[in-house]
């Protein structure tokens, strides 16, 4: 009796910053209560088991609403920074179990949860399909770069594209998609062997070069996709070419435009917007998961909704390095049917001026 509707999908994730976690907890406290201190929050949050913190519904334009949940793993920024892998993996598994308890048929793994599961190559538990969300993320990054070039009146065929994290699931997908569509492709990753293999394959269809040193290529690149997820940024923007388009596609988003020197065009990549909006509004999630554009979410979080709306309860994105151009196109069609589009471009300072100009 009076049970919430069983969710078709679950989005499993974590917060990028302590301020988001603080916003979540403060929103739950009574207005008369003294706000929690930073120490109190840091002492408490790591112990909270993964759990549903939000319920939502999405629907294709004119379609039947599909119910979903957001499961917060409470993987903390400190655990991420210290790379406490076993502890974080335990939380991811508990997050999946929380989604299972609710009856979700599909779970999409957001942020570092997908990175952890990619490398572990674990089988999904019975009754729930797991998808990393990386195909939609990659597709949204591609669309975002195309949108940025369009807004700035530039053609990608003339650009030198640098992909940082080029051997990762998302980075390699972007490299395959942009091969032959830009003037030159520069690839950077930490694992030299994987990088050389990736580059050799791409060289068959385009002009590509590879390095393990970001700074070697940074000045040459006119477009940068940073798909390496690290707690600290791999470079500072003053090392980039003037007027470079920089897609911050990592997690957490940590590349900030230099203050007072807006000569590089930074945007948060992989962000999608749900045309029909998330329902209901005014939920807890809105207290800590907010962006300059409403109804926006990370692609990895949206992939579960897209698949559920399309009745595709399957591990669409799995493992590492399997995202083909065709799979991205297929995902894009599914996203289109679910009313998911690339979000207007923004960064930590707000919406791009080019997005608001008439």
């Amino acid at each position: 009796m009076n049970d919430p509707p069983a969710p078709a999908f679950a989005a499993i994730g974590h917060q990028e910053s302590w301020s988001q976690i603080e916003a979540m907890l403060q929103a739950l406290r009574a207005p008369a209560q003294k706000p929690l201190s930073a120490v109190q929050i840091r002492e408490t949050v790591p112990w909270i088991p993964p759990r549903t913190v939000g319920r939502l519904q999405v629907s294709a334009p004119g379609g039947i609403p599909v119910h979903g949940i957001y499961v917060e793993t409470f993987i903390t920024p400190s655990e991420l920074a210290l790379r406490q892998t076993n502890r974080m993996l335990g939380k991811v598994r508990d997050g999946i179990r929380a989604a299972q308890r609710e009856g979700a048929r599909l779970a999409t793994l957001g942020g570092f949860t997908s990175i952890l599961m990619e490398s572990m190559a674990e089988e999904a538990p019975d009754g729930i399909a797991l998808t990393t969300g990386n195909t939609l993320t990659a597709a949204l990054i591609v669309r975002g770069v195309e949108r940025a070039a369009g807004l700035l009146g530039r053609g990608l065929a003339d650009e030198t594209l640098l992909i940082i994290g080029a051997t990762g699931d998302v980075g390699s997908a972007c490299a395959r998609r942009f091969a032959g569509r830009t003037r030159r492709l520069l690839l950077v990753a930490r694992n030299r062997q994987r990088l050389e293999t990736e580059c050799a394959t791409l060289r068959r269809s385009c002009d590509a070069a590879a390095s393990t040193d970001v700074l070697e290529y940074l000045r040459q690149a006119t477009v940068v996709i940073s798909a390496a997820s690290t707690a600290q940024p791999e470079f500072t923007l003053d090392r980039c070419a003037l007027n470079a388009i920089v897609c911050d596609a990592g997690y957490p988003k940590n590349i900030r435009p230099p203050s007072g020197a807006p000569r590089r065009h930074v945007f948060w990549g992989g962000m999608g917007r749900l045309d029909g909006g998330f329902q209901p509004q005014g939920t807890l999630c809105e207290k800590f998961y907010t962006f300059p554009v409403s109804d926006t979410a990370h692609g990895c979080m949206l992939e579960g909704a897209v698949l559920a709306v399309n009745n595709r309860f399957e591990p669409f994105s799995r493992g590492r390095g399997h995202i083909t151009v065709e799979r991205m196109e297929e995902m894009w069609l599914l996203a289109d049917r679910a009313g998911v589009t690339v979000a207007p471009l923004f960064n930590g300072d707000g919406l791009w001026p080019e997005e608001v100009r008439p």
Partner: protein
Amino acid sequence: MSSTYASASELTARQRSVYTDILSQAITGELVGMANYAAMVRLYSDEESQRDTLIRATSELNHSERFRRVARDLGMTPIVNLEAPYWNRIRSVFLEYADAKDLVACLLIQEVMLESFAYSMYHAVADVACERLSTIFRAIGNEEDGHVDHAVKYLNAALTADREEFENKAERVHDAVMTTLAEMLGENDSAGHCGLCSGSCVKGALDQVGLDRATLRGLALNRYLSTLDRLGVRGERSLAWVARLPM
């Protein structure tokens, strides 16, 4: 898990004092548990459940006796005080629900809240204590684990029958009991002296034996929330409850 100290004879006077205060809490808590189970007997209508509940009351008494024995063997003199302010407050809340013949509320208090607290504290102590103390705390901690299993089945059925009513009741019980438990493990003592520590508050000296207040509190919170999850309480609801707790 390995113990920090192999033998009780290696303990410093300060460490012995800390363990004595911990034993005071454990013995008093077990006796409160015994009294709670005894009061619950009449809430069951069938003989089998009444007998099972009496066995649990006896088991709690047995735990307190085992803690007393080990304290005596180690030359420690714990304080046993059922009128200690925090425990008395919890016991009073329990009795209100027992008088109202509210078995669900009583089970939530005893088998979810107090047992979560006991289980996590006992295992944390077992991980750092000398062999003699470690063995007893771990053994009793494991026995407490079985109590929760029994309650989960009954409480889950109550939740399935009417989720909204169950969760509303659990919230009321939480506010009354978990607030007190949180204060016991909080930074500051709202009730003044707890009535069980032999000197000043033991919380400030836990580091002497490799424990700390925040970790004990975190472990108890984790266990409590995980048990609520097993019952089927919505995650967002129980999160809101714990977010309101005193820190």
